[in-house]
């Protein structure tokens, strides 16, 4: 036994993880799709954190973004539309030893799965949630999404979207037990990585909205932001993001923001333009559901038998003396 354990430890120590260790099948997203940038950042993160591929699960729902698990060489769960979060919660509760990531899109999370989104934030279970927000339904070919801008012409709104978009950041920041809320944009890949890394290290439900382009259906939607770096606002703080000098040369519009300050976080989230990038809110002390409500890790047959017999005793009517 001890030899085997020893060997295992040695193997773990010696095992090298490179990017290839996490690369599954070749992505089939459109070229220029923001999902590619997120995938790359995630693979880097796994490598740098030396996550064991067999101990890592990517859970997704349905949509372009939800294909991501197929492109990882970890365990993956590509389920049904909108339900990635409850699936991930079940995994998390059953298996505290696994690294759990969720990839979801603006339709998956903010529309069909919106109820789960709210409750996932409230449960605050340890997982990293990436909302790939391209503001359109891509896989079903261009229908308006809850985050599409008002007036957007889509297949279901040929004369323009009727409603103002839902703001995933303000919604999330309004939910009790929110513990980590951040935003990234696909045109600054360096910060996707930085933010996801911070999200991964947070013990709780980290919610990262990543604004991304859909080159197929909305190729020009984000051009104004891409062409004007000042319309991106970098949130920096000693407890939040520190931005590299090279990035600072391009993105001069920066603002110090204390991620513990939820009121200011809500203000920033509401403003919307310039697009804030960085950690809006981080509170490491919010309790996690799986700490409050955990499966006993050592469920021996004796434990189960003892518990069961105690219950059967309560219901045993006759003969009394033979009970227990």
């Amino acid at each position, binding site marked *: 036994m001890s030899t085997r354990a020893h060997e295992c430890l040695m193997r773990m120590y010696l095992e090298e993880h490179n990017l290839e260790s996490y690369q*599954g*099948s070749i992505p089939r997203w459109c070229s220029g799709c923001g999902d590619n940038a997120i995938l790359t950042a995630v693979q880097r993160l796994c490598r740098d954190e030396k996550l064991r*591929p*067999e*101990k890592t*699960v*990517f*859970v997704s729902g*349905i949509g372009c973004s939800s294909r991501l*698990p*197929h492109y*990882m*060489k*970890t*365990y*993956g*769960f*590509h*389920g*049904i539309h909108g*339900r990635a*979060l*409850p*699936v*991930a*919660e*079940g*995994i*998390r*509760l*059953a*298996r505290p*030893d*696994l690294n759990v990531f969720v990839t979801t899109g603006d339709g998956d999370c903010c529309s069909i799965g919106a*109820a*789960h989104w*709210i*409750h996932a934030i409230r449960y605050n279970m340890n997982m990293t949630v990436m909302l790939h927000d391209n503001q359109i339904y891509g896989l079903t070919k261009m229908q308006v999404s809850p985050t599409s801008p008002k007036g957007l012409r889509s297949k279901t709104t040929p004369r323009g979207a009727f409603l103002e978009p839902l703001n995933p950041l303000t919604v999330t920041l309004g939910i009790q037990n929110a513990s980590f809320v951040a935003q990234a944009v696909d045109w600054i890949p360096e910060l996707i990585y930085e933010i996801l890394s911070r999200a991964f290290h947070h013990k709780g439900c980290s919610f990262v909205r990543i604004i991304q382009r859909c080159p197929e259906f909305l190729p020009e939607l984000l051009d104004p932001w891409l062409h004007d770096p000042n319309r991106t606002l970098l949130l920096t703080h000693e407890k939040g993001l520190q931005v590299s000098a090279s990035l600072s040369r391009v993105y001069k519009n920066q603002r110090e923001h204390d991620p513990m300050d939820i009121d200011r976080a809500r203000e920033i989230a509401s403003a919307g333009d310039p697009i804030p990038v960085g950690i809006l809110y981080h509170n490491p002390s919010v309790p996690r559901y799986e700490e409050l*409500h955990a*499966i*006993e*890790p050592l*469920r021996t*047959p004796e*434990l*189960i*038998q003892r*518990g*069961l*017999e*105690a*219950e*059967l005793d309560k*219901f*045993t*009517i*006759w*003969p009394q003396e*033979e*009970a227990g």
Partner: protein
Amino acid sequence: MCASTLAEIGPAVATGATRSAKQAITLSEHVIEIISDSGEGAQRCGQSFGAIAARMGNGVWTVEIIPAEIQPPARSIAGASGNRIRIGTHRVTNGGNEANLVVAFNEQVLLGRVRERELKPGCTVLLESMWRDHPDAGIAAAYRETREQLVRDGYDVREIPMEQECKRLVSDPRRGKNMFVLGMLCSLYSFDLQLARDQVAFIFGKKDQNVIKANVALLEAGHEWAESNLDFKYRIPAARATEAQIVVNGNTALALGVMASGMDVCAMYPITPATSASHYLSEVFENVGGIVHQAEDEIAACAFAIGASYAGKCAVTITSGPGYSLKQEAIGLAVMCEIPLVVVDVQRGGPSTGQPTKAEQGDLLAACFGSHGDAPKVVMAPSSIEDCFYSILTARKIAETFNMVVVVLSDANLATSQQPFPRPKFNEAWLAPPVNQDPVPEGAKPYDWDPLTGIARRFVPGQPNGMHTLTGLAHDRLSRVAYDPESNEEGLRHRSLKLAALQKSLKTPPLFGGEDGELLVIGWGSTRGAIEEAVGRLRAEGHQVSSLHLRFIQPMPGGIGEILKRFKQVMTIEMNWCDRPGDELIDASNRRVSALAMMLRARYLVDIDCWGEVRGQPLKPDAVCRVISNKLVQGRR
């Protein structure tokens, strides 16, 4: 045709009795109802009465009478809340026929039961008399009017000053009248008063001694009052079992089954009448290291259970019809990805919100064929309270052996009924094995379907070399998305084969009655007791009728086709809708038959008739008797 089940074999009732002259009439069984407004404690009284009978060694079946609302208006016809207790010398397998004796705390709830035809014509009524002189003239008039009508209709109405008698002992008789009634009933049925005292001490066990004392005093007062003032008394001989017995309702039995199966997780969302299983499990599951997760909705509950199952051990989600409908897509995912999952559907009246507190067997086809596409899953139905316990153990095991969804169909009848059964003897083999974390052998594929059985091994996260992405999309053996025709067919074929593999391991269910004859009645689920009781009675009268009860409906065990051939006629009896042949527009070309009948007809190409009742009440043996008798007559024409 059917003789009454009430076999009065003792001496006739002594009239104008003094205490000493009162002789107990010996009965083989009796059905007693205790009804009140919600919150007056008739349910607790009834359950305690049932428990004492069980302690006496009698066969018992109790049925809850539940109004749909939490606090219906006082004294309302629809507000009857309470319990029906059927007590017999031998094992009792169902709630029986109309009540023989009823205790009512007011005349309005009594009227409700009369109108629902739940009381035997002319039965004994013990009626709270406080309303007779109520200061509200309307109430007093309603009481007198109802009482007179009942007397005119032949009911043996005894007016009991319950309130007045209880006032001697407690300031608020509304809380405590039920114990007085319990004492009265213990006298009427010649129960051992000490057992009753023990029962009272047991139910108030968590409260302080004064509460127990006060309730015992009420119990004794009721007993004494009945001894002195009522001129009749019964005795139902008991035949004590030799092994230890437990008394629980079906939902508690389900929950105990979950505990005993070694499952870790129960994910649920509140829904009647399933929730009480989760209530109980929430109390006790943690004692054995498991958890109950109340999810944000039914879909999330199912998805959560799927996630937990995927990550290691089979999980369970417990629901009722509307929740089951919501879970259908997620159930399809578990089928497609071959994740073990136990889904319990405690059926109620449907469709839509239907009758939440009433019994119906309307979900069979949804369970067998629900979820879009071909989604083969196992469907089983416990047929007794005891079976609720063991079905969960079996379901868990099948789910994990075959990587399948197993649907367990209970119903509101089993959920709230209580019955003694032998105390389960713990067996370590009941438990799920620990989560497999061994490395996956080189070259093994996540869907290495066995060509014979369709079973594939399952790779659980944490197993080295087993990494793959499970998907609800069509996939090949490597779990890669695959839209090619071969891969799709291969997946469908193997998922379907697993049902055949399971079917080969199932035994043909035993026949109740004879091996052949004029009529075979087939049932499933909670109706077993009523059907077998009726069949037994008719056989005793010389009729060639037998019955078959299916525990597994999908897959259906082998050997049934041969059985069908040995009977001249076959019919199902179910608690779901089938068109009435007497309706003008209904004929053989359009008649919608009951669910099981439809499945049997499709499989065996036999002209199987059906009879279904959707009154929300458990089937009564008398009703089944009538149906069978009519069918026998038809067959002889």
